């Protein structure tokens, strides 16, 4: 019994320790080595508030836009893969994996070169298009796995009952898959929300999301703002997943 409780305690501490450190560091004015506790709680962070707020809004807008673009693309791709022959399916999944397994820096360099050629480097649109690449890959892989358990026979039945392809998407596929589509959206948005290398390389510092600001704070030696940024960075994903979990638990789906 004691061993199990200790194990549970270790798990909780391992999960909470990094967040606790961020909370403490964000609250304290300074925490010099080798002190175990911060020496002061004084000091204002308000001057950096607008920067954090702007970066948060930019990141959320970017993440939502990426989710909105990537999810339908991933839905189309995964539906095509799910009904394709094994050979085409394997090839398609490898393609979807490519932006996922490629190191972000490599992908970023390539994307930066392309974005310069297209004159979208340093723009919000350029960053958006670049984020869509890995986000679509992740969402496609996720939805392909989901569609393995999806009964396409329901769509065949609906077609012979007179439903057009649009009717089928609107009345069959989307309602049945709604919770999983929401998860794919959240996944794509998260990929964008936490993206640093692609944003830096294609955004050229002009598009300032939270990870970009975080890096800037840490590079300038401001650990406190770095910790605060890191904390803010974790809030939307946690909140989003909490809401999603609550919403999808009420819906019957595959």
């Amino acid at each position, binding site marked *: 019994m004691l061993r199990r409780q200790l194990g549970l305690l270790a798990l909780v501490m391992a999960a909470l320790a990094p967040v606790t450190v961020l909370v403490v560091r964000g609250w304290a004015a300074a925490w010099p080595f080798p002190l175990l506790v911060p020496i002061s709680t004084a000091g204002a962070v308000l001057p950096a508030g607008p920067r954090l707020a702007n970066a948060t809004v930019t990141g959320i807008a970017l993440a939502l836009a990426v989710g909105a673009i990537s999810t339908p693309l991933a839905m189309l791709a995964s539906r095509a893969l799910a009904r394709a022959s094994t050979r085409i399916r394997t090839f398609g999944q490898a393609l979807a994996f490519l932006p996922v397994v490629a190191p972000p820096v490599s992908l970023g360099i390539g994307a930066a070169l392309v974005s310069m050629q297209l004159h979208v480097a340093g723009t919000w649109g350029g960053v958006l298009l670049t984020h869509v690449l890995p986000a679509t890959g992740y969402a496609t892989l996720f939805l392909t796995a989901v569609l393995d358990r999806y009964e396409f026979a329901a769509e065949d039945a609906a077609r012979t009952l007179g439903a*057009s392809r649009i009717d089928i998407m609107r009345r069959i596929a989307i309602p*049945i898959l709604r919770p999983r589509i929401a998860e794919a959206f959240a996944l794509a948005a998260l990929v964008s929300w936490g993206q640093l290398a692609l944003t830096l390389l294609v955004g050229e510092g002009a598009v300032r999301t939270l990870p970009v600001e975080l890096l800037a704070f840490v590079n300038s030696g401001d650990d406190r703002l770095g910790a605060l940024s890191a904390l803010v960075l974790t809030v939307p994903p946690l909140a989003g997943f909490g809401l999603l979990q609550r919403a999808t638990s009420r819906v019957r789906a595959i």
Partner: protein
Amino acid sequence: MTTLAALEVQCAEIQYDRNVVVHDVSFNLHAGQRLVIAGPSGSGKSSLLRAIAGLVPLSNGRIIMRGVDVTHLEPERRGAVYLHQVPVLFPHLDVFENIAFPMRIRKIATPTVTDRVMTLLERVRMPELARRRVGALSGGQRHRVALARALAANPEVLLLDEPFSALDPTLRREVRADVLRVLDANGPAAIFVTHDIDEAVAIGGRLGILIDGRLRQCDAAAHVLARPSSLDVAHLLGIPNIIHGTSDALGDFQCALGRFAGWGGAGAGVLVARPLALRVAEIDNDGVHDAVHGVVVRLLPQVAGDLVVVRVNEIEVIATPAPGMYIESGQHVRIDVDALSVHCLPTA
């Protein structure tokens, strides 16, 4: 004046990856008629049904519904509803909305939809389950809802792919009776696919035998059973007595069960006889001289009436005992062959 066939299949051919799975199949079907396509697994039955529905393309041939060539039309524009082996209901809709689905997509007014759905629910004897989740339905109820939903689409042709095979025997008979009752009342042409010959016969109507992708015979079920067109068909039908013999110079067929005049074939052949065509009777000395005699090997108890295995001239045949006759193993008996109910086929 001739009425247009609800469905005409002309020289249909289906290929998967260059393998032809259905060859040159043709038949037609009028409104209210039933056709059962029976065949072994892998014979192309389901592919043919799916091609009629438009879910699989034809590599050759045509499909015509009510005089309109629908070969290249999308499934939703054909008027043929396909019912899967395991009923596929829409899990996010309740029973009412499942049945209402074909009418909702046609944008029919809600009061009309409600009336029609309730009528169909009455017809499939489920009016009290209108608002039940489909996940909470039993197997038989799911079949009935799928049937009601299919009828709600008002199809020209209903395509039922092994519709009862997933049910246990008792439920199968019950659901089959319900389906046939509802179809009789409603009247779309219906094609059933099955690998179960007993079921094919129970469904009635015409019987098509599909073997290796070819429609070997298509006729009234009673005719197919009495006169199978080939040895393959006889085997598929499960006819137990296939007795080898030869034709003589006069064209009569000669085998262990006697001589059968007027076969017209030449060389080796087989006599195909259902147990009903061979009647076991007691030997009497006043009987005809060329009567066939044999010895009872064993009884085969059956639900519909016992059969008897009789050894005749080194072969065993399965026959039907005369009413009220007491039979035991080793008994010497006479076999009366109903010459009109047996059929001779060439072996080649």
